[in-house]
């Protein structure tokens, strides 16, 4: 059993979310996170869903049963494929003691978190990154004060296979590793 990461393209219509969520919940699955937003084509939405505990046997079936929904254009299982996975978190650290302030801003820098609100005793940070990175930052921030946070849930996008990379953006001779670094360094 492990988490399943599903990326979906759906028609932007009333009920589309209900139908997708229904396939999951009626089978007793817990949705860990779910993000939805319009795509470049405003009649379509993209969704990323992380589902708790799906057995290997059921993953293919789940994707097919979601694809079967009339409003779903495409459903892809990204669990084992190469993908970029990002999440946004807003983290408020309050009751920060004055002597810890500069250390806190240092930590934020290391994680490339932006400080978006400051008051004498609290800081609000905005950070994007992989879910792991966000967890790590939150763990750390507990040392600085009381933590409150809100997370967007994961968004995921399949990485394009090398032979499909559009030339203007990447050099065709760039190897997988250098693309990986390039991508990771953006997070």
């Amino acid at each position, binding site marked *: 059993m492990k988490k399943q990461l599903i990326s979906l393209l*759906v028609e932007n219509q009333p009920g589309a979310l*209900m139908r997708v969520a229904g396939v999951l919940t*009626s089978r007793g699955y817990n949705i860990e996170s779910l993000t939805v937003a319009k795509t470049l084509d405003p009649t379509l939405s993209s969704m990323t869903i992380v589902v708790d505990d799906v057995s290997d046997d059921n993953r293919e*079936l789940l994707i097919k049963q979601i*694809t079967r*929904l*009339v409003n*779903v254009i495409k459903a892809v299982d990204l669990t084992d494929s190469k993908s970029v996975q990002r999440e946004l978190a807003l983290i408020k650290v309050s009751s920060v003691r004055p002597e810890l302030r500069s250390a806190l801003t240092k930590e934020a820098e290391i994680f490339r978190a932006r400080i978006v609100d400051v008051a004498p005793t609290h800081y609000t940070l905005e950070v994007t990154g992989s879910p792991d990175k966000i967890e790590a930052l939150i763990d750390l921030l507990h040392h600085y004060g009381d933590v409150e946070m809100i997370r967007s849930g994961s968004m995921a996008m399949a990485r394009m296979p090398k032979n499909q990379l559009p030339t203007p953006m990447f050099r065709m001779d760039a190897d997988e590793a250098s693309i990986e670094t390039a991508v990771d360094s953006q997070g």
Partner: protein
Amino acid sequence: MALMTGAQILIEALAREGAEVIFGYPGGVTLPIYDVLYDHPLRHILVRHEENAAFMAQGFARTTGKVGVCMATSGPGATNLTTGLVDALMDSIPIVAITGQVPQALIGRDAFQEADTFGITRAATKHNYLVKDIDELAQVIHEAFHIAISGRPGPVLVDITKDVLTGKGRFTPVSELRPLRGYELQLDPEATAIEEAAAFVWEGERPLIYAGGGVIAADASDEVVELSEILGCPLVHTVMGHGMMRPDHPNYVSMLGMHGGYAANMAITECDTIIGVGVRFDDRVTGRLDRFAPHARVLHIDVDPAEINKNRRADVGVVGDAKRVLKKLNAKLRETASERADENAKARTAWHKQVFGWKREHPFDYEPSLDEIKPQYLMQRLDHFMGGESIMAVDVGQHQMWAAQWVRFNKPRLWQSSSGLGSMGFGLPAAMGAAVANPDKTVVALCGDGGFMMAQPELATIAANNLPVKVVIMNNGTLGMVRQWQELFYKERYSQVQMSDGFPDIPMLAAAFGLKGTTVRNPADLDDKLREAFEEPGPFVLNIHVTPKECVYPMVPAGGALSDMILGPQKPVMAGD
């Protein structure tokens, strides 16, 4: 074109889709629709409970292959429909349900008779709509019919707010679909898949066709028979597959599964190649899945990609409409026959002999009686009077399984059974829908005494419309199928299965509805009474008392493998392999 009300647009759109009859029940928010129907040629049958409207629409659809239509008001009307919708979803039956909804301005305010029909029926339909814009209505109706009947058929519900029904708009007949980008049909198989399937099929030494509801849905019976003839291959079918092959065909084995025939279950256990067509490897068919068809490699043909590999992994999966796939596969097999047919011909002939040897050794069987009407004897006599050409809708329970074993159907779309959901109360209304759709055919509703009581208010609809349904109640005094399980698996502790207490006097009940009815207890009277019912041009209700304590055999105990089937009361367990 002049402005029309939403209700008028709805009825025009339904008529244009070819709807011949609506099975429905009116209410507050659907009043505008009923006002249109008041003097519209589109036929409406007033049912006595909305659940039965959905079952009647199914009876219409199952026997014609066309979309059946039912209608209900908001709130309780819509919730009453849901069993019939789920039933249609489970058995892949194309129906369109129209429901009224409270006016948009009141939605979400706990208005009188407001229910979240759209939400409630999400899991009960293939697709559903909430129409809040009159300009969408005609398009949605067109789409609903398309979705209901295409690909894997199923129920579609259209919920329409009252302000749309009373509002005015222009009716532009729709003949083009707007693009349904998420609804991709894979009807034609890929050429490589056919090559692969043909090669696979020739490799089999002990091939078996396992075919079901998808063959009926695709009208692919002829193609299945042809396939079996090309290969000289035995055929077993599911409860949903009756009538695809004449039972007197030399390749016809029987139904398989929990109450399937010995030969059918042995054949699937021993075969090396399964050709599965329009079947979904249901647990009532496979028994214990890890011991199902242990020697077989599987070719699975289904129009729904989600069925391939669902319960049993397919060695070759072909997604496509059964008729189109089989036409191509048969052609490919004929084309390659000269090279491949001889390869395993000897083994295939020996296998055919073995399967039909099993069939001769252990046909469906029972202990006859002169004093009591045995349920199986009743089925044999019904079979005799129906002659393979009449329509029969069964309810759910023992009588359903006995009918599936004993009554023969020479053509598809004669037999109707609520198979996937197993909804008691289905048989009578389904037969009524069939009678409306097939005025030229004899239609039998076979019910248990339990299921009959669930549906009996519809005798009023039968009387009001003079629907010539032969209602046959197999009366064993109990909820027989449940009683059977209590006998076999719950130490004969018969808990809450008595139906005879309070069961009505059927001739009197029938008479109260203005119908003819009779009760039969003696085997010697059975034929005369059946003849009387079948010769009567109108409806007839027969209450037939059968042996109360008979069990359906063969039976695969729940959780057992097919080869663990119990053949009869005395003989305990058959060793399979």
